[in-house]
């Protein structure tokens, strides 16, 4: 079979969910930085961060080596830039859902739904955001912790509603830990597409430490009905 001379094609855009406001879906590879970032997400998800070489990213993006090093110091810097883009987008989606007016448990449920839906759209994106970041070495724990603290800071608002919070100062971490670890596990096992189906049970686990079993159960039922 004849093989065509290889012409680098732009990487498949990394798909990020967008709300109903009609903005284009995804991180569109308009410029070389974005092409490199999208390519980094694809090759990391496929091979694992530690197996990826800059050459893989260049091949997948069709961007030249010189341009790569103008934009990023090294593979790690490119990965961290990609990871930051993803995390910021995820948090923007979560924050937006959380700020919708309504009772606090409902806002938490909406924020959780936004996170699960965001992660379910593109398996590669989910994997790089939550799992592959562990490959970067010593700073992984700090990066992971920073995201965790962004979530717990959000949940701290619920402390006022809760009598438990006075007894358990770390209640937000206790609540978020159940959800964080489960999401991590599902993505690791390649089940990110099914994450939205966990909304009811994770709504319960997230709210229960704050509002108790009965109220958390009510919100779980609303999540099921939705």
């Amino acid at each position, binding site marked *: 079979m004849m093989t065509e001379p290889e012409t680098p094609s732009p990487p498949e855009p990394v798909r990020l969910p967008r709300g109903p406001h009609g903005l284009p879906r995804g991180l569109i590879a308009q410029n070389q930085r974005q092409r490199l970032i999208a390519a980094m997400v694809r090759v990391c998800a496929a091979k694992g961060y*530690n197996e990826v070489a800059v050459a893989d990213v260049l091949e997948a993006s069709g961007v030249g080596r010189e341009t790569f090093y103008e934009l990023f110091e090294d593979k790690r810097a490119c990965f961290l830039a990609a990871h930051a883009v993803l995390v910021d987008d995820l948090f923007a989606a979560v924050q937006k859902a959380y700020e919708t007016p309504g009772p606090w448990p409902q806002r938490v449920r909406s924020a959780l739904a936004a996170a699960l839906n965001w992660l379910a759209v593109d398996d590669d994106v989910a994997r790089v955001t939550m799992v592959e970041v562990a490959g970067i070495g010593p700073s992984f724990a700090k990066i992971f912790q920073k995201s965790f603290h962004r979530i717990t800071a959000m949940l701290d608002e619920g402390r006022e509603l809760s009598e438990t919070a006075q007894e358990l100062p770390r209640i937000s*971490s*206790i609540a978020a*830990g*159940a959800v964080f*670890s489960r999401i991590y596990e599902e993505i690791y096992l390649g089940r990110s597409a099914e994450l939205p189906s966990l909304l009811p049970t994770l709504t319960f686990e997230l709210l229960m430490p704050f509002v108790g079993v009965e109220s958390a159960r009510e919100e779980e039922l609303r999540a099921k009905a939705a």
Partner: protein
Amino acid sequence: MGNDIEFLSDRGVLATTLAPDAGLRAREAKVIKAMAAVCAERTYAATSITEVVRRAGISSRTFYKLFAGKRACFDATLAAFAAELESAVEVARADAGEDSWLAEVRASIAAILAVSAAKPDFAKLAFVESIGVDPNLIEHYRGALAAALMRRPTPPGDRPPPGTRAAFGRAQLLIADQITSGRAAELPELLPDLVYIALSPFTGPEEALRQAQAAR
């Protein structure tokens, strides 16, 4: 415990652990300690056998007599820590008395936190580092910890209540957060939180909270 044996022999850990040469066993302990120290400093990915060997003061040849490679050594290090936790839990459980399941759970958690605070390198390996090395490890330790921590007088073969899986996630991330914040020495202050987390699926949150207050 059958699971543990399988897990270890799968990774070639048992063959070395059961080696008859006492001198080799002593060196194995040194390597394990060095592995924990280097991993805690640099993370697993950045840990080299060269550095572990240097720190342990042994030859590479001896290292490879003991372990097939870096991963086998890491697994043995985790297994050594798990064994230490397990024996500390056994002692604490015996001291707590036979009559009170709640007191046993509280004593077990206190023992785990005390050992972890005394061995921060190992604790970091188990609670922070292992996620990055192989998430299957979490699966393994979740099973082991759930069995150890949440044992209560129920008929054999009884399934743990829903929520124990979530409880493990809560506990793991709480401990990891404390270690990442550089506060491993203060791990014992998490006792009330962990009592609440561990008991909640079994007793409901109200009773779990009362027990957490009693543990303070």
